[in-house]
């Protein structure tokens, strides 16, 4: 096992308009692992996920991905904020899948997937397009290359979004409630793709309410409440035998 963790959060704090959303979160994700973050709404799950790729700037604490400090450069005792271009370069190695898909509505499915590898990573257009086709085939959308996103179902759109994130050949994939905006019958097709990715050894951090997915696919389950990690461990322990009363109360409410 590699000694550098893929994600390493140390004492992360974040405030929004005076309200402390994260109050000192430590989190370690090893390469190839799947971490599922659970917690009641407002517990800071999404904010936590967004600090990993610097969509949210942290107020205090350090974020490292694959050993590299995110958003800052350290020299001695000082942290220098990185210029936007370098932050964008760091992000282009971290895939992010949104709750509302956020596909570009004016671009075809194929262009949605191929845009960032070409413009953010400067890779060869023909190679990228070839890879994009393969990825869309992998998520079962080989016949939708030239469609516009609005003409697809929610589940299909989210699968395009996953292909778009994968096209960057990311070291790490972040999922922010990827199935919460979907009709119940479409959740399965997205979870299937995610399970497939988990099996193939992709490092993933997933914020979700899908306890079933956590049980099957997670290596670690983290329970977050009021901006703090309350409990973490293998799914069998956290989900089936939680130590903390708050975890138990949450699971009781979700699994009811």
């Amino acid at each position, binding site marked *: 096992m590699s000694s550098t963790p893929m994600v390493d959060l140390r004492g992360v704090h974040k405030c929004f308009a005076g309200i402390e959303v994260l109050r000192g979160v430590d989190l370690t994700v090893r390469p190839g692992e799947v971490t599922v973050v659970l917690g009641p709404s407002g517990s800071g799950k999404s904010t936590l996920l967004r600090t990993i790729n610097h969509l949210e700037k942290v107020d205090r604490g350090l974020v490292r991905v694959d050993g590299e400090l995110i958003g800052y450069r350290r020299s001695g005792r000082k942290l220098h904020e990185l210029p936007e271009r370098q932050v964008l370069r760091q992000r282009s190695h971290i895939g992010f899948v949104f709750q*509302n898909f956020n596909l570009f509505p004016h671009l075809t499915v194929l262009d949605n997937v191929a*845009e960032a590898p070409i*413009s953010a990573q400067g890779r060869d257009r023909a190679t990228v397009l070839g890879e994009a086709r393969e990825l869309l085939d992998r998520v079962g959308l080989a016949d939708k290359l030239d469609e516009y996103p609005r003409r697809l179902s929610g589940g299909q759109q989210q699968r395009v979004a996953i292909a778009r994130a994968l096209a960057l050949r990311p070291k790490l994939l972040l999922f922010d409630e990827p199935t919460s905006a979907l009709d119940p019958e479409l959740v399965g097709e997205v979870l299937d793709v995610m399970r497939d990715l988990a099996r193939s050894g992709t490092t993933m951090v997933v914020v979700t309410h899908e306890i079933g997915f956590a049980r099957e696919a997670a290596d670690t389950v983290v329970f977050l409440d009021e901006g703090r990690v309350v409990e973490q461990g293998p799914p069998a322990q956290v989900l089936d035998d939680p130590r903390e009363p708050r975890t138990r109360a949450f699971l009781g409410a979700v699994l009811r």
Partner: protein
Amino acid sequence: MSELVTAHAPPVRHEGPDDDADLTVVQARHPWRWVATAVVAVLVAMALHALVTNAAWDWATVGQYLFAPSIIRAVLLTLQLTVLGIVVGFVLGTVLAIMRLSPNPLLRSVSWTYIWIFRSVPLILQLLFWYNLALLYKSISFGVPFGPALFEIGTMDLVGPVTAAVLGLALHQAAYAAEVVRSGFLGIDQGQLEAAAALGIPRWRRVRRIQLPQAMRTIVPTAANELIGLVKGTSVVYIMALSELFYQVQVIYTRTGRVIPMLLVAAVWYLVLTTVLSIGQFYVERHYAKGALRVLPPTPLQRLRATFARFRREVAA
């Protein structure tokens, strides 16, 4: 559902479910629509009658001057002023809009001040300022700011009447264009920016490839409005004695005394220019609707073909 079934169920009526297959729909009648149609038709007929029968309109003179070389030249100048005004205006306006949305407070306030001044001062006044620029600055020099000049040029030589007119129209237009473009950018879903940021797409690429095409959906209709406004707005330039359309017809009617027909000539040409632009607007809007609408509206040609096909089917049936 059950009520429907019972309604059909009574055995007395001898109606099997098969009878439902060949029901015909009788469309609802709208008597008031017919009344309104008749009233409007009479009014339109009266208006046309007044236009044609009153000799004062002098349609013969209109026909005589409509394609006169001096008028055609004037139309071309009007077109030139419009195109340069709108292109320069929108390029500058886009820059101003991006400045106003920038996090840099100096850029923001410069843009705000520009828009404030150029929207506040009447166009006709601005045009006269540009026309009389030589009174303010005799010569214009190019070189190091506040330092030595590399070369100098007389203001009169650099800013002739046409340049003054284009400058005046474009700089005035830019202030409005900036707000049109800004509103387009403001209308974009925040999630689009987040997605672009999360994918690491560089800033300028994001503006060009993600934001601008989506902003165009809101920008185009308003921009077309501005463009059509400018076509007619160019007529203000007549105070600079530039022989655009409105000035030219005035020149002709002061000589010939045929005021009404000459005004009609100008009106017809403005109508033609605006019509062409409106048609262009339809296609540009359609282009930017890609992905936003599930089905694009048919072009007039497609609609014509569809009607023709339906007609043929009906004849065949």
